[in-house]
């Protein structure tokens, strides 16, 4: 007597030949080494993305865009809708954890040089997704239309406007006018729920497909070990179950954070109020924010902020293109320069984030 499940499987298999796919998945192995722990951070980032999609759709059911409606609709979600406070809090906390896990994933890949040939495209799609995540964070931050978000958006878009030549049109495009107004809110809403998710999903598809196709990267030092002596574990079910266990832990952590540290809504934005004392951006923008505070108005003939943007832009570009200029790693040779570069960046970000946090 066949179960319903296997009948269904046979029905599909007869039509689309699932056999080869199942065989392929069954042969998938994950390398086991002392750096294996880092493999879990990509998976957990995927999990957090799924949570964002689900909670984001739920929030969409009650959120209203517009200067007169946005703040009030979040108030409504948090005070009137059953478990609205929970859904909104989870969405905000997940956004932060998502960026954190993606950062850990990114730095671990960087220091393992897992971006080296043949995984350049995986790195580039991952980095593009990271930039998009910052865009998600920035655009989503404005949607409650509160005081902090209003000024954060003014500053953020004004920074874009400081870029020579193309800056001004980009700023007007982002703001939907010369100033941050309800028009900006409408645009950011569109970016946040349609444009960014669309592009992100395509990149994610490529990223995951490449990981399936190429398998997990192994440390350079393991490349000399003969294939028969390398330790592995089957993806199904060994690695997947470990993945799921980690997801469960993170889900619990999220629940604790959302319940005991509910996300604040703050004060409604007032375009004719002063920026409040102690204003600062989300932690992942803090190091850039703190740097901007230290750059004087003029350095030689340049505007300080333009110089700051140029340095960060160049740094980001170097980071994005690291698989293409780090030739040594692709040849399987150790490259200390990369380590120093990475350590410098990590220390810089940590130091300025901490200073920004304290002041």
């Amino acid at each position: 007597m066949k179960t319903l499940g296997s009948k269904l499987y046979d029905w599909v298999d007869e039509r689309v030949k699932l056999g080869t796919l199942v065989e392929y998945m069954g042969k998938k192995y994950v390398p086991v080494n002392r750096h294996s722990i880092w493999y879990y951070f990509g998976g957990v980032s995927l999990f957090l993305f799924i949570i964002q999609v689900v909670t984001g759709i739920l929030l969409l059911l009650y959120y209203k865009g517009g200067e007169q409606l946005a703040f009030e609709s979040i108030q409504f979600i948090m005070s009137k809708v059953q478990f609205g406070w929970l859904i909104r809090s989870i969405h905000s906390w997940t956004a932060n954890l998502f960026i954190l896990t993606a950062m850990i994933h990114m730095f671990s890949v960087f220091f393992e040089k897992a971006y080296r040939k043949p995984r350049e495209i995986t790195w580039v799609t991952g980095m593009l997704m990271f930039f998009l995540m910052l865009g998600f964070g920035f655009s989503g931050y404005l949607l409650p239309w509160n005081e902090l978000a209003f000024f954060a958006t003014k500053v953020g878009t004004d920074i874009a406007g400081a870029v020579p030549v193309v800056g001004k049109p980009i700023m007007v495009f982002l703001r939907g006018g010369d100033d941050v107004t309800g028009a900006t809110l409408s645009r950011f809403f569109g970016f946040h729920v349609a444009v960014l998710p669309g592009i992100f999903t395509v990149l994610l598809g490529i990223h995951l497909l490449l990981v399936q196709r190429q398998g997990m990267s192994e440390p350079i030092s393991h490349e000399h070990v003969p294939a028969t002596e390398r330790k592995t574990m089957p993806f199904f079910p060994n690695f997947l179950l470990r993945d799921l266990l980690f997801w469960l832990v993170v889900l619990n952590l999220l629940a604790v954070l959302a319940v005991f540290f509910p996300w604040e809504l703050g004060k409604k934005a007032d375009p004719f109020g002063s920026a409040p004392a102690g204003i600062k951006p989300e932690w992942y923008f803090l190091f850039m924010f703190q740097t901007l505070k230290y750059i004087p108005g003029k350095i030689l003939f340049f505007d300080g902020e333009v110089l700051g943007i140029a340095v960060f832009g160049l740094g980001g570009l170097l980071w994005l293109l690291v698989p293409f200029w780090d030739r040594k790693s692709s040849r399987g040779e150790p490259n200390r320069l990369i380590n120093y570069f990475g350590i410098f960046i990590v220390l810089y970000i940590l130091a300025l984030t901490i200073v920004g946090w304290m002041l």
Partner: protein
Amino acid sequence: MNSESMPTGQPDNDRRDFLKYVLGGGLLAWLAAVLYPVFAYLKPPKQAEVEVTSVKAGKVSAIEKDSGVIVRFGNKPVILVRNAAGEFRAFSATCTHLDCTVQYRKDMGLIWCACHNGRYDLNGRNVAGPPPRPLDEYRVVIQGDEVSISKKA
């Protein structure tokens, strides 16, 4: 059959090139016709704004000495400062650094921007922090007990 393999294929190649240019040019024109409206759509239209030249900021007696208030000037914020001596000054409240709205700090006796710790003195000059330029000054006119602010000519 295949004109390219023939040594005397000159006229055919000309025809092929001609078609290439016509079709390629047509494709470009088509692309432009599709993209132009899209890009034009992205650019927000200029809203008709009422040109504001002067606004009333309140009564002299209602504004304390050594204080500052933000006044709505059209769709821009303006900061009206009354110093300890009782004199009025008005400046654009938009920080010249990154567009935040400044405030009067009694304890510092300065105009201060919370976003990046920019400081201006009571003449609107950028004296510390990242602001690259002084604040634009507005003219304050006092008629009787009424304070009004207008754009400097």
